[in-house]
């Protein structure tokens, strides 16, 4: 294994922490400076994640995987904390940094002035998310989860107001409870396997004695509940639509990656620890993942059709996206083949970017569409309303004007909205369609048993995959027609700064469409690597032999 990453691997965690800490030295009124630091940090993150991504692909032909290791404190392998970089984590780190850029630009259109320390919290959130993707240790994962959640509480409450406080209260309570479940699960895993290193757990699981195995399965189930709550799987997802709907748009846009952190951990652990090489535990939990995934898709489809509020529609869209990937993970764990999982990963990239863009669009599009309030004077400018400095709750007394007053036409909004709706509904030629086709092809192509009859559950999945797209299409089209075509002539003021980030995200989606072949081959190789967990395990535990040598030397 080459040390291609050397110290590059830890930078996605270190850079945001340093940037966020540096910002704290500046007065909160100097937002332009903070924005500059944040943008520099994110550009560095993007460059580093590109480098990491090209590193994991390896140089020995297509389909090869290089797993990067970064032992913190240089302890011998099963001890101490280790960062692990494989194809999946490199992809997720890349996605995080790409989503961070538009969200931060959007915040510059005024939202970062609605409260204190927006930029620092944003950077800490990135550090937590990147850390969760990179760590190879279960308890370290808990710590990064908490870093991410603590920052997200701040971002969730950013802008204040009764609606946000109420949703934030529920959000924090639920996440605290889920974190406690995480701790119980992690402690049980340590109690049964005697290790917290994910690769070492995977090594220990097939060798567990029968009496311990039941306890380990309980641990896996408790951990699963904690992650499913973060990933917003039905019936643990009721917190999501109100929370994401109430959060300020740039915060909600970066929150789109947070449900994917839950998905990522489920994907990683269920395939690594309970995957095909787990002996008697192989496939544990796969039926639950499949059924919950299907239920989540159904719930999301009904939800998006049922709610009139655009922000909440975004929440239900992320629930649908979560459910789709979750069910695919369950099928992969049950032996559904790499093609379907590769398609699901491809879909995950595109849908996360689209949901992020949707949250950014939701507020400008529904601006001026709210039910009239009594205390609002006639003809007041909604934009000016939004940028008046807060007068209570520790507001900073300064101007919160946007940096550019340039506005864009209503038509541009309409086009962006239509493109994102098409992407989320899975219409060709956008990645939503390509990903779903790959999943369908994998589901039907790889899983026909000798009898020639597709299992019922796969038919349900296929049907739900199409129906959830249809549901999203109907809901978004209905909203679009009412908002853009049946317009009474009074269009709101939309700033260019609010549309630029959406265009950036659309450009990313466009790039994913044009470069479909290479992205798809990357995700398919990722899925193949995930389905043979020994690649990851051996890469992490390879230095164990040298550690053993060290130990015997000491004993002598």
């Amino acid at each position: 294994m080459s040390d291609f990453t050397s110290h590059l691997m830890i930078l996605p965690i270190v850079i945001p922490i340093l940037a966020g800490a540096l910002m704290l030295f500046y007065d909160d009124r100097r937002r332009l400076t903070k924005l500059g630091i944040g943008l520099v940090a994110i550009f560095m993150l993007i460059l580093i994640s590109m480098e990491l991504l090209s590193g994991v692909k390896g140089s020995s032909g297509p389909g090869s995987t290089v797993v990067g290791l970064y032992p913190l404190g240089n302890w011998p392998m099963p001890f101490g904390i280790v960062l692990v970089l494989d194809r999946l984590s490199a992809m997720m780190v890349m996605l995080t940094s790409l989503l961070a850029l538009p969200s931060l630009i959007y915040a510059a259109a005024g939202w970062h002035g609605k409260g204190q320390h927006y930029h620092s919290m944003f950077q800490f959130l990135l550090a937590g998310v990147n850390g969760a993707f990179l760590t190879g240790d279960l308890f370290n994962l808990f710590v990064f989860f908490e870093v991410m959640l603590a920052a997200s509480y701040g971002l969730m409450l950013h802008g204040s107001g009764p609606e946000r406080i109420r949703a934030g209260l529920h959000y924090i309570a639920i996440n605290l409870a889920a974190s406690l479940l995480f701790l119980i699960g992690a402690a049980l895993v340590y109690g049964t396997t005697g290790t917290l290193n994910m690769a070492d757990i995977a090594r220990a699981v097939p060798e567990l004695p029968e009496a311990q195995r039941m306890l380990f399965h309980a641990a896996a189930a408790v951990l699963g509940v904690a992650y499913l709550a973060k990933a917003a799987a039905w019936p643990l997802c009721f917190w999501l639509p109100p929370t994401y709907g109430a959060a300020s748009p740039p915060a909600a846009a970066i929150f789109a990656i947070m449900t994917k952190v839950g998905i990522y951990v489920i994907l990683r652990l269920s395939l690594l620890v309970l995957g095909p090489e787990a002996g008697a535990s192989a496939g544990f939990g796969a039926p639950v993942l499949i059924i919950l995934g299907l239920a989540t898709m159904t719930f999301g489809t009904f939800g998006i059709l049922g709610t009139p509020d655009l922000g909440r529609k975004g929440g239900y869209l992320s629930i649908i996206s979560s459910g789709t990937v979750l069910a695919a993970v369950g099928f992969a764990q049950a032996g559904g083949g790499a093609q379907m999982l590769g398609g699901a990963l491809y879909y995950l990239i595109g849908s996360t970017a689209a949901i992020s863009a949707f949250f950014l669009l939701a507020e400008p599009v529904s601006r001026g569409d709210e039910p009239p309030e009594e205390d609002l004077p006639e003809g007041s400018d909604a934009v000016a309303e939004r940028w008046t400095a807060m007068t209570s709750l520790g507001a900073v007394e300064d101007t919160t004007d946007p940096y550019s007053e340039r506005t864009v036409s209503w038509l541009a909004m309409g086009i962006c909205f239509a493109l994102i709706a098409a992407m989320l509904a899975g219409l060709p030629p956008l990645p939503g369609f390509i990903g779903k086709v790959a999943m369908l092809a994998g589901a039907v192509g790889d899983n026909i048993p000798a009898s020639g009859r597709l299992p019922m559950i796969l038919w349900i999945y296929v049907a739900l995959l199409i129906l959830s797209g249809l549901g999203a299409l109907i809901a978004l089209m209905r909203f679009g027609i009412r908002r853009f075509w049946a317009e009474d002539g009074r269009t709101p003021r939309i700033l260019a700064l609010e549309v630029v980030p959406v265009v950036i995200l659309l450009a990313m989606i466009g790039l994913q469409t044009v470069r479909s072949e290479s992205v798809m081959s990357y995700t398919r190789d990722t899925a193949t690597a995930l389905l043979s967990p020994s690649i990851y395990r051996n890469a992490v535990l390879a230095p164990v032999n040298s550690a053993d040598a060290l130990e015997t030397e000491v004993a002598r």
Partner: protein
Amino acid sequence: MELILALAIGVLVGSGVWLMLRPRSYQVIVGLCLLAYGVNLFIFAMGRLYVGAAPIMPKGGFVDPTAYADPLPQALVLTAIVISFATTALFLVVMIVSRGMTGTDHVDGKERLS
């Protein structure tokens, strides 16, 4: 000792869960605290129970690991205590703001009839 510890964890978690499901935000926060205590004790118990055994081995020479307590769960508990303490403090702040803004300590921000 096992029985007492198990009972302590059970009582803490049981009352924590019950309080967390109550409608008043103050009850919820006390419930979360009790749950955190129960979970911390549980993590501690997962390192097995020892009486009068030090967690740190002396330097040099081979020592019998069975005579020492497992230091890792103790480190984990320390981390868990700090994190749950910090997040609970944050939750408390949000709760107070919610009380000030809505004028009620109901978790939904409004009183339910009946």
